[in-house]
């Protein structure tokens, strides 16, 4: 199974309002995997947007998170501080909002809005990466020493030197390549203009070309023809003056053409392996090697660097990684034993002091179970401390609250009864006691502990069959990336070029001109593209789209959906797509979660939900949209969603459901598993339930779709 990006567990959110507590999200759990689209479908008021806003950390002020976790990497998004959230919001998780007009600033130019986040985020990212790198190197050294490697200090410091060199080379290469691309594009533009019009190209444009051309000259990119490129770039301004005087621009065109040729040639070159090159330069010879082609260069540096340092280092690092895993596993076993020992403290009716003392004992043990040389952060272990603190605090404040509430209720009731006994009818009524479900909170405490113990057992089992060299490679790669991130600096002009490239990739024509325009100068579809581009500026891994096409019409909608799909492929994004339009869902989703009244009622792959829907609410949704062949009366869903201040006791959909069984009014249905990927919460799936077929309109449509699909396959 693919890597889990975001994992939402037992989330429960309510809103304080004047009339009472509105339970918007009631105990939902789902996972988002890397590179997939998860669609959340439901009526308005079903809690779709509340969930997505909680993930982004932008819940409304009166929202109360009652329970649950949103795990992202090593963090629980519900419990981190606002400062910590700054590093995630927009950077890692980005959002596209429903209305493009109201999510753009009307008095800022588009370009400014696009680069703003890039510049701000780059600073934090560098600081963060530097810190990470330092910690990792220290851990590596310590583990290597523990594994009996002599002179671990020197290995680590040599590796750090090499990494520094590597990051420098890598950024030099990317910059030069970028500038070569720019030079090529600019040269093409200028050539076209020179050929088509009599007027001379402004000196500013010419200067831009010269700057890009000169900048692209580096060891990696324009190497063989560096002299030629430089002289062509230098001659541009004088040639331009000459051409302006004489009116004959053939010489100038020739120079521009040369620049374009060289740049194109450079772009077509192979990618050099900067890592081995760095090794070569640090350990073999402190000079750039001579080679005919990039491939030959790569081979040469690889051989030399391996021989000099890398091979040896990898061996030693492997020992370190193995040691680290061994130590962590030992710590884990100790922690599991402690967890199981302390578990009874949290069962029954624990005293506050006991529970807190137990937590105090457990926390350092669990903290030791974090492998310092991990690539994928182990979110459950990282968040254990805050989770258990939170659960304990909730439990005891719940008990306190219940005590106060019962006292208040009794007091008020007494007063009311006294007045009623006197024959008066008070204008006010007794507010019913708002009691907290303490049992639920206690099971949360228990759950946090058992869940971690199970998780650790699983990890120990997984580590038994681990391949150390592969893992070492992963760790070294990860350190490489971290160092690169620390070295990568964005200047204003780089940010502008990147913004322009982004605008191009989301399909905006003439981005250089558009860059300086204001939002009102764009049409609806273009505005939505800008919003998507802004969401992508910081290269997030998760994109949340909250009804991005509801305000747009069909053709524009189709374009935006295609765009999101394309970007998802290119950037390996994970997308959470919120909508109520089932046609759009079919297009986008890999998996679908159908929400109703704050609960997920059906959860499965797109095929599962569209071809074998199991929940009556999904049937109702499917039958209430006409497709192109529908002739008969549509089946609308009668009534309105329930009032979430007083959620119904049984299945929330029972009142509007013509297939409702008696038990639907009594008890909430659990999630029944239909297949490996398909779940639904309805009593109809219980073995004792009567067999019910979906409505005719849905059955017919599925039959038709299947028939069509069959024909396609033949």
């Amino acid at each position, binding site marked *: 199974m693919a890597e889990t990006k975001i994992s939402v567990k037992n989330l429960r959110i309510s809103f304080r309002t004047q009339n009472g507590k509105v339970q918007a999200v009631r105990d939902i759990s789902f996972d988002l995997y890397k590179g997939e689209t998860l669609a959340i479908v439901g009526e308005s008021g079903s809690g779709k947007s509340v969930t997505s806003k909680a993930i982004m950390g932008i819940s409304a002020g009166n929202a109360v998170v009652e329970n649950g976790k949103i795990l992202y990497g090593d963090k629980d998004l519900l419990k981190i501080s606002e400062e910590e959230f700054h590093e995630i919001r927009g950077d890692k998780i980005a959002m596209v909002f429903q209305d493009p007009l109201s999510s753009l600033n009307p008095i800022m130019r588009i370009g400014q809005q696009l680069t703003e986040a890039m510049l701000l985020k780059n600073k934090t990212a560098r600081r963060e990466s530097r810190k990470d790198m330092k910690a990792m190197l220290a851990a590596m050294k310590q583990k290597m020493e523990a594994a009996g490697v002599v002179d671990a200090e020197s290995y680590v410091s040599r590796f750090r030197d090499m990494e520094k060199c590597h990051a420098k080379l890598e950024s030099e290469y990317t910059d030069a390549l970028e500038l070569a691309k720019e030079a090529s594009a600019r040269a093409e533009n200028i050539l076209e203009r020179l050929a088509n019009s009599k007027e001379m190209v402004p000196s500013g444009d010419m200067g831009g070309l010269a700057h890009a051309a000169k900048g692209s000259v580096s060891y990696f990119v324009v190497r063989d023809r560096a002299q030629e490129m430089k002289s062509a770039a230098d001659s541009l301004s004088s040639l331009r003056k000459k051409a302006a005087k004489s009116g004959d621009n053939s010489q100038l065109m020739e120079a521009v053409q040369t620049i374009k040729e060289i740049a194109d040639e450079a772009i077509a070159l192979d990618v050099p392996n900067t890592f081995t090159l760095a090794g070569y330069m640090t350990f073999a010879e402190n000079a750039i090697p001579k080679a005919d082609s990039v491939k030959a260069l790569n081979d040469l540096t690889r051989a030399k660097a391996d021989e000099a340092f890398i091979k040896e280092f990898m061996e030693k690092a492997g020992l370190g990684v193995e040691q680290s895993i061994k130590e962590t596993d030992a710590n884990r076993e100790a922690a599991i034993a402690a967890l199981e020992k302390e578990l009874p403290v949290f069962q029954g009716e624990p005293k506050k002091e006991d529970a807190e003392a137990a937590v105090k004992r457990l926390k350092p043990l669990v903290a030791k179970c974090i492998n310092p040389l991990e690539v994928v952060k182990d979110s459950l272990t990282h968040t254990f401390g805050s989770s258990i603190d939170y659960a304990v605090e909730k439990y005891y404040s719940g008990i306190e609250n219940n005590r106060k509430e019962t006292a208040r209720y009794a007091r008020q009731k007494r007063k009311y009864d006294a007045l009623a006994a006197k024959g008066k009818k008070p204008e006010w009524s007794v507010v019913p006691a708002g009691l907290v479900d303490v049992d639920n909170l206690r099971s949360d405490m228990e759950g946090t502990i058992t869940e971690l113990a199970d998780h650790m057992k699983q990890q120990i089992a997984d580590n038994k069959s681990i391949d150390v060299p592969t893992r070492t490679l992963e760790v070294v790669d990860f350190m490489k990336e971290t160092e690169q991130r620390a070295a990568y600096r964005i200047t204003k002009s780089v940010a502008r070029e990147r913004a322009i490239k982004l605008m191009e990739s989301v399909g905006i024509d003439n981005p250089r001109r558009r860059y300086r325009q204001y939002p009102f100068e764009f049409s609806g579809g273009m505005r939505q593209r800008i919003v998507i581009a802004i969401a992508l500026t910081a290269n997030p891994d998760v994109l949340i789209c909250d009804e991005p096409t509801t305000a747009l019409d069909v053709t*524009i909608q189709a374009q935006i959906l295609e765009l999101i799909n394309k970007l998802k492929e290119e950037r390996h994004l994970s997308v959470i797509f919120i909508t109520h339009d089932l046609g*759009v869902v079919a297009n986008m989703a890999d998996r679908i979660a159908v929400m109703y009244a704050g609960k997920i009622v059906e959860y499965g792959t797109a095929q599962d939900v569209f071809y074998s829907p199991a929940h009556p609410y999904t049937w109702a949704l499917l039958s*209430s949209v*006409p497709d192109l062949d529908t002739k008969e009366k*549509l089946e*609308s869903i009668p009534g309105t969603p329930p009032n979430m201040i007083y959620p119904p006791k049984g299945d929330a959909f029972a009142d509007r459901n013509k297939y409702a069984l008696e038990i639907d009014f009594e008890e909430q249905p659990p999630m029944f598993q239909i297949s490996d990927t398909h779940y639904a919460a309805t009593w109809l799936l219980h073995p004792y339930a009567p067999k019910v077929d979906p409505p005719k309109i849905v059955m017919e449509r599925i039959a038709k*779709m299947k028939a069509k699909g069959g024909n396609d396959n033949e």
Partner: protein
Amino acid sequence: MSDEKKNDVLLKVENLSMYFGKGAMTKKAVDNVSFEVRKGEVFGLVGESGCGKTTTGRTIIKLYDATSGNVYFDGKRIVAGTKSYYDEIKKQKKLRAELQKNGGSAQEIAACDEVITQMYEEIRKARYDHKHCDDDFRAEEKKRIQEKYKELLEKASPEEKSKLEKQKRRELRIASRSKLVTQIQMIYQDPVASLDPRMTVREIISEGLIIQGIRDKKYLQDQVYEMLDTVGLVHEHADRYPHEFSGGQRQRIGIARSVVMKPKLIIADEPISALDVSIRAQVINLLNELRETMGMTILFIAHDLSVVKYFSNRIGVMYFGNLVEMADSDELFRHPLHPYTRSLLSAIPLPDPDTEKNRVRIRYNPLLDHEKTDEVPELREVCPGHSVRCTKKEFEAYKKQVEEA
């Protein structure tokens, strides 16, 4: 088309144009659009946003003054624009000046003069119709009522007479305030924005009747309750305010408000675009019921093609102010001819993941999809009931295409 069917035409839109702005800034929101809506049918108007669907609807109901072209409702001209006549006058004047300069014959000049006077006459008529169509309608209504009561009064006994006289006076008063355009009602897109938040549902629904001059409280109440029943609300809702209702219920109130005027034609301007999935079906079903029980004709403006297909008998596709294709809904979806219609159809999202993931969208680019000619394309009937805006050459190609299919 047979004669019998022609008589059934309720709304006829003839070369309707609506321009905004003057001179170089002119925006042609609706340009030379013609179509007919027959009694009892649903005519769907589709196209992307900004193509002039809503402007067409609003011009028909006289919220805008048309630039040129005519709209006939129930055989009477209710909208008349004058620009086309002025253009003709300009042309003739130019011709006349040229003739005078080059020594044209007196006969030719006289012919020009005649055309010019004729055009001025047309303009006068158009202006009169545009402004006074309601007056004529009122006069007719009054005459009808007078005649009706003349007979009744002659036959009636003295006791009944006073009662009848009273009734007649009331009906005359209402007739003196009635308007022809009242028989066309509009349902707006956004139910939140189109209902006055400070009026109760009773006031909202009965407002039109009160403006018409009905003062009978009992009658008003009956009408309001009847409407509430029709649209599926309960009588208690009459004294609530719009904010107390859900989106679907609000749209029902909007529908009740227009249906209470007993219109012959309803212009539904994207009535379901702003609504939730489950509510959409409710509103579509309600409109369908109204159409069956009250025999209403509906001009349905929307951009959701699957809904339009489900709901309409005939569909007109608009692109940048022009009607590019018009046909029966089944025919249009089976044999779309104009490249824009095809691109529009290929963009419909369907609730079927397998086909949806392999869907290829056709792009429409007016510069590439049509051959470059100076000829102005016109709406031509390719086969009975199916018209496409095309040049002569394209027309032949389309014809061939239809025959092959």
